[in-house]
């Protein structure tokens, strides 16, 4: 079915110049309620929308409109969706994945980035924007000579704008800290939520792995490094609450596994856990079908499900419904509740990406760390 805004206003024999005029003044992808029309203008043998939405074919072929070089494809999405994608353009039998030339919106990530389209009900949260200078916390670099790893590790530490040495602060440890800063604007989110009194001023330690897929897949050395090296170092540098009640550990994807595994290996060290799209693959019977990097994860998750203990009191879990991990994350929430862990689970119409994780930070952090908004009446 050709969208009416195309069939009504573009001639199937339109020249390139006429197509250009048609495109000008319109934004693409064209969003009309739940209907999202992806478009491309140019010579090609084949054009497709390439995306990471679990449940849809990964390759959505675009149709050429009449005899023109205008290509389109319509997909129906829930209106609060946020969709990352690229266009696969084929010339001479070779497909190249490109940013959508008609869409200036790009979501960056450690692999480069993707074009992104927002559903009609989606809004970039205003609490993720940069605050004026006086309201910004600062991020300091802390070096730790790790006995556990036998190397030097760097941690970025977020210190809130209102920091005072006589106060006591809660500690949030973040896996993949640099990526959270770069792609989820974690420092801006913290500045905003603190300024709005939605969370209390926190000290946030953003750790970074050297060999992520090894260290974050239930590596005992990683857990030891966090608990026996990083936390004592932070406690010597900052006025922290030196008890589980003052600590939370957090991460996304494999960082979620690292968070859960660290808390599990060191029970009563953390009061709470914040995990986003955790790679919590497990098996009930037989082998898993994911890549071999998941072998230690599956082994850990199976062990955790057999012997969970009581590693923490509160957990916030989020996952996008467009991710293959939604099943595992949905399963984890009732399991946590059955252990007596106060658990909040949230889904979003989004995928496995940093902006999805950014967008859930307000609900997660304010639930785990309720701020003084309750006590503040301006």
């Amino acid at each position, binding site marked *: 079915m050709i969208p009416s805004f195309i069939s009504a206003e573009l001639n199937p024999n339109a020249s390139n110049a006429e197509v250009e005029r048609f495109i000008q003044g319109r934004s693409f992808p064209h969003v009309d309620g739940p209907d999202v029309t992806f478009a491309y203008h140019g010579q090609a043998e084949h054009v497709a929308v390439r995306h990471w939405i679990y449940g849809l074919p990964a390759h959505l072929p675009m149709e050429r409109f009449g005899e023109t070089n205008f290509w389109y494809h319509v997909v129906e999405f829930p209106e609060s969706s946020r969709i990352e994608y690229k266009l696969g353009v084929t010339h001479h039998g070779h497909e190249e994945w490109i940013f959508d030339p008609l869409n200036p919106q790009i979501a960056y990530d450690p692999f480069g980035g993707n074009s992104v389209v927002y559903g009609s009900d989606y809004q970039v949260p205003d609490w993720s924007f940069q605050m004026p200078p006086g309201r910004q916390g600062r991020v300091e670099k802390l070096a730790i000579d790790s006995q556990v790893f036998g190397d030097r590790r760097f941690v970025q530490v977020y210190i809130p704008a*209102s920091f*005072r040495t006589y106060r006591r602060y809660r500690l949030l440890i973040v896996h993949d800290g640099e990526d959270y800063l770069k792609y989820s604007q974690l420092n801006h989110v913290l500045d905003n939520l603190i300024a709005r009194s*939605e969370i209390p001023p926190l000290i946030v330690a953003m750790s970074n792995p050297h060999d992520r897929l090894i260290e974050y897949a239930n590596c005992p050395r990683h857990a030891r490094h966090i608990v026996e090296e990083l936390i004592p170092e932070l406690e010597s540098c900052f006025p922290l609450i030196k008890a589980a009640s003052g600590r939370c550990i957090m991460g996304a994807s494999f960082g979620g596994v690292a968070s859960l595994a660290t808390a599990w290996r060191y029970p009563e060290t953390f009061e709470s856990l914040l995990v986003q799209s955790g790679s919590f693959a497990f098996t009930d019977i037989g082998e898993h079908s994911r890549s071999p990097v998941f072998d230690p994860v599956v082994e850990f998750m199976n062990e955790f499900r057999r012997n969970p203990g009581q590693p923490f009191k509160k957990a916030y879990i989020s996952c996008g419904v467009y991710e293959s991990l939604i099943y595992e994350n949905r399963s984890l929430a009732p399991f946590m509740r059955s252990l007596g862990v106060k658990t909040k689970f949230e889904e979003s119409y989004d995928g496995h990406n940093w902006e999805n994780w950014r967008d859930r930070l307000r609900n997660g952090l*304010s639930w785990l760390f*309720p701020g003084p*908004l*309750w*006590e*503040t*009446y301006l």
Partner: protein
Amino acid sequence: MNAEDQPLFLLGPQPEYATLKTVLKSLNLRQPAALITCGWETEENEDAELVNALREVGAKSINLGLFTRTEQLFANDPELIQVLQARQDEIRHMREVYKDRLHHLLKAARQILRRKDPLVDFSAEQESAIDMIRQLDRQYDARLGQLVDDYENRLNTPQRHFVVAHRREIADILQGVGALIISGGHVAIILNRLKIFGVLEYLPQVPIIAWSGGSMALASQIVFFHDSLPQGPGNPEVLRAGMGLFHDLLPLPAADARLKLQDRIRVQLFARRFQDFQCAVMNEQTILERRGESWHSWNAAGSLKLGLDGRLHNLEGASS
């Protein structure tokens, strides 16, 4: 003069300082007003907009700097901060238990209030469920009061060396002021600073004008509330006794934004739980002036209270 007899004006939130200016115009101050903005915490000194608003109506001002003074105190008197932090820890534990108990009692009361059966009268069960919450509030308030008193006996704050010096300075400033203005902000911080520095003890017989968190701190009872927190609605909870300048009114700043006023069960439960008080909706129009035993409202739009039937009503005795 007893602080309870002090001329007193309670206002709602002040995005443009409109009602504050209205009151100040009427007072026509000849002496500067003392400002307390410690509720803004580290932003205490960012008072330029407020000072300008006062200037517009010909009022000069002097900020008492209570937050900054406390920071100096903590730097000079480490024992004070240590003991206060120990007190805070104990309060936190006590509060966690109170909130757990409160959660279950409120849930039960809401369920009973929502129950409908034309053949059965549940009013006795409803009253009993609400009364259990009142009992819990009283117990918590008493336990907390005892704990705060015990710590105060250990600390003897007014006599501490550095506190004495600050109190003397504040007393000197207050002798020359024409009014005391207390902004909104973090209520516990406002309350603590008012107590540490004995501000009301040294205040001459001049009008007090307080808004939002400032007005809550002056009440005999302080209740926190918010139905629209990002983490979900909170259960209204008692903080502890305030400065006790009035006993009949529970100021609820921005209640029109913070409370689900269309939810008659929640409103009814709130009003019935705190039935000894008029639960006043303090909106941006609100100006309540204490005149003798009663409250005079300067305008009808700003003189609403939560009703026992779950609707909004006019404040009793509030002429306008």
